[in-house]
C-alpha cells in the first residue's frame, strides 16, 4: 500500500474564525455590573391588623413629603434635597436635646457599650405624580445620612470607617451589626393612599 502523505492544514483562516467568534460574544453578552440602592419592603399586613399601627410620638417622626411637582417638604417647610442629609443627621443625633427632635433611649451593644440612641423614625411619603428620579434622590440622601452617622460612630470608637468594614471578617461583621443597631435604617413608607382628584 502506498503511504498517504499527511498534508498540512492551512491555518491561515484560523484568525478569521476566531475573530468571528470574538465579535459574536462581544455583541451577544453584557459585562455591566448592576448597582443600586437596596431596600427591604415591609411585609403585607394581615387584614385584621390593618389599623394596628404602632404608636409613635410625633416628635420622633421625621416627616419627609414629596409632592407631584417634586417639591420637598421636611418637618416644617420646603427645603432643597441638598439640605436633607444634614437635617436628617441632626434629627437623629439631637445634640442639644431639642424638644422637636427625636427622643433617646438607652441601648447596650457589645462593641459600643451603653449609649443613648435615637427613637426616631423617618416617614417618607410621595405623591402619585412624583418623579422616580426625585424619589431616588431623596432615598439616597436619607441613606447617606444614616451611613454617615455610622461612619462617624465607627471612626470615633475604632478609627475605621463603617463602609470599609469587611462583612466576611468575624469581628468586623459583629461591628457592622452593632452599628446597625445604634443607627438603624428606619425609613417607613406610608401605605399609598389613592386620593381622588389628582
Amino acid at each position, binding site marked *: 500500500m502506498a503511504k498517504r502523505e499527511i498534508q498540512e492544514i492551512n491555518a491561515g483562516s484560523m484568525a478569521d474564525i476566531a475573530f468571528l467568534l470574538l465579535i459574536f460574544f462581544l455583541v451577544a453578552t453584557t459585562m455591566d455590573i448592576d448597582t443600586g440602592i437596596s431596600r427591604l419592603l415591609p411585609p403585607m399586613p394581615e387584614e385584621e391588623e390593618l389599623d394596628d399601627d404602632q404608636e409613635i410620638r410625633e416628635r420622633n417622626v421625621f416627616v419627609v413629603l414629596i409632592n407631584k411637582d417634586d417639591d420637598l417638604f421636611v418637618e416644617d417647610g420646603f427645603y432643597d434635597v441638598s439640605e436633607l442629609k444634614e437635617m436628617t443627621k441632626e434629627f437623629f443625633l439631637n445634640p442639644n436635646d431639642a424638644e422637636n427632635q427625636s427622643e433617646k433611649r438607652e441601648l447596650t451593644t457589645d462593641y459600643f457599650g451603653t449609649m443613648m440612641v435615637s427613637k426616631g423614625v423617618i416617614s417618607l411619603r410621595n405623591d402619585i405624580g412624583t418623579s422616580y428620579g426625585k424619589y431616588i434622590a431623596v*432615598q439616597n440622601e436619607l441613606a447617606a445620612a444614616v451611613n454617615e452617622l455610622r461612619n462617624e460612630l465607627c471612626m470615633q470608637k475604632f478609627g475605621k470607617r463603617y463602609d470599609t468594614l469587611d462583612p466576611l471578617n468575624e469581628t468586623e461583621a459583629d461591628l457592622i451589626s452593632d452599628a446597625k443597631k445604634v443607627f438603624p435604617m428606619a425609613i417607613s413608607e406610608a401605605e399609598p393612599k389613592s386620593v381622588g382628584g389628582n
Partner: protein
Amino acid sequence: MSKFKKASGKGLKQINTASLPDIVFMLLFFFMVTTVMRETNLKVGVIIPEATEIKKLEKKSLVSFIYIGKPIRNLQKTFGSEPRIQLNDAFATPDDIRDFITSEREQMDENDQKQMTVSLKIDQDTRMGIVTEVKQELRKASALKINYSSRKKIDEALLR
C-alpha cells in the same frame, strides 16, 4: 546616503501572523468567561437615576428584573408613550407581577429562594404611581428584597 533610508529601501518584510489566532482566542476566552449572555431585549427605554449610596448586586442568578419606562421609539405607535412595565420579553400589567415572581421563584434552587432580589430598573422620569403599584404587588407576592437600580454619581468636585 543616510542610514535611515537604507533599511526601508529593501522592501517590506512579511510579519509572521502565526500567533494571531492565539491572541484572538485569548481575547475570546476572556470575554466568554467575564460576560453574561444578554437575556432580554429591552422594549422600554430606561435611563436609571444617579445615586451615591449604591451597592453591587451579587449573584446574578438570584436577581429578577422589572423594567419600567416609555416604550422605545418604534414601538410607540402601537403601545403609546405612557410608561409601561416589562417582564422578561413582554409588556405586562401590575397584575402579572405575582405570576412572574412565582415562576421566577420556581426556577431557583430551594435554598436560594429566600435570597431572591428584585431589581427595579425604572426610568428616572417615570411617575411614582406605577412604581408604587408595582411595589404593592411585590409585597403581595412577598418578594421583599428589592434594589432600586441606579448608577454611580460622578463626583462633581473631581471634575473640577
